[in-house]
């Protein structure tokens, strides 16, 4: 008797779960579908930041990660969550002033008098030989008095 009653409540909760998850792209916390790691083998994008001396000359060349010459900035040390940061870098479509300001504000603890930061998008994929290749693409350079965006991003958003 009680079991059947609770069974009906469970059935309704499954229905609500399904409706909420289906109408909210699988996420109405704590109702979630669990698609993480479902699509295996897909290329991924993350992000990281390296520090350079203020007078270092930098360019916008994409490099294998092991060839980067900057000093790795531990995002934890400046209270920035790496996953949030990666999402910020990868999900930003238009690098307008507001977006750049939001990016810069995340590094308010950094002393730009002694350093400049390069924010990289890091891309990983399996190449044709079956090896994993990881490359870093410089997106934004933050220095004491400048915020520079990789010209190719501006070209992409204009096209």
């Amino acid at each position, binding site marked *: 008797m009680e079991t059947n009653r609770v069974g009906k*409540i469970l059935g309704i909760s499954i229905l609500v779960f399904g409706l909420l998850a289906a109408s909210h792209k699988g996420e109405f*916390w704590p109702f*979630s*579908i669990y*698609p993480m790691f*479902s*699509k295996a083998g897909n290329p991924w994008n993350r992000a990281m930041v390296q520090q350079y001396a203020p007078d270092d000359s930098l360019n916008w060349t994409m490099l294998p990660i092991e060839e980067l010459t900057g000093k790795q900035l531990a995002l934890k040390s400046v209270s920035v*969550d790496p996953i949030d940061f990666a999402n910020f870098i990868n999900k930003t479509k238009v690098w307008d002033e507001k977006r750049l300001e939001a990016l810069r504000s995340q590094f308010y603890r950094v002393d730009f008098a002694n350093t400049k930061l390069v924010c990289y998008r890091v891309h990983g994929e399996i190449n044709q030989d079956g090896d994993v290749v990881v490359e870093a693409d410089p997106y934004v350079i933050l220095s004491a008095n400048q915020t520079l965006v990789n010209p190719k991003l501006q070209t992409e958003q204009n096209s």
Partner: protein
Amino acid sequence: MIQYILNSLFPFEKPYTKAQHLYFRGFELIITFYTIKYTWEWLLYSRQNVDVVLPLGIAHYFDVSFFFSYYPNVILSIVTSIAVILGFAKIWRAGSYTIAMIGLHLAYATRFSLGEIPHSMNMIGMGLFSLMLASCFYKDDAKRSVMAFGFAFFYVGLAYTSASISKLIATGITWVDGRHLWLWMNEKSIDILSREGVFAFNILQETAFESWGISTLILIFGLTAEAFGFLFWFPKTRPFAATLILGMHVGILLSMNIWFGSYMVELIYIGYPWVCWLGKIGKKASSNQTLTVLSNPC
């Protein structure tokens, strides 16, 4: 079959002993603790958010950036914490747990409005949801306990089995190809490098990189453990399913540095028949009268 599953999930006919009551209160305490912990952690962090990049859940209808500012942020933290404590203290339980559930959902949507969608705290959310529903439908602790645990068992099993089905639908059986693990290990290594400033692969990761076979075996184990998640619905197979899932989470921690802390705590707590085991110990240790009285031999 459905009746068998329901009888396994909701054994209302079983006697409700003092030991089971304590065990249920322990479950409520774990949920209460993590609700308070997460509410404060999430909302404190979200004070530095400036923009909603990805609206989640209720954030589709309500601008959660309202909670980025100090007073709404602190008030939500306090209200949610008080509500869950009142629920635990058996004061207006249905209402208290419902308010706590809404508060925790709002806190989650506020914190994770920047694009990250973590699932490591979902079982705490489902635990609170189970307590809320059980408190809405029953005042009696015995029935509340059966309903809350039954819901928690069901959604743990559903989560894992559905995750394995997702993998088979999205990728197919080639999901277990060891090179996929290489790709994910590299991905997580960038997250750690980005967070800590340094990163070095451990022995298991090095071994997996060196051997496609070992890497593939790790993924086969992970997929199998998830697929058997539904065994969590049945009392006899629950410890087996819990052990498989816990093993998988340890594997995920070692290979991809992803830690499901509260998930593990909840799984260890509800995945094993602690009351039953304590009962057996109590019977053997006949001199320990407290254990004998409290326990419920199975």
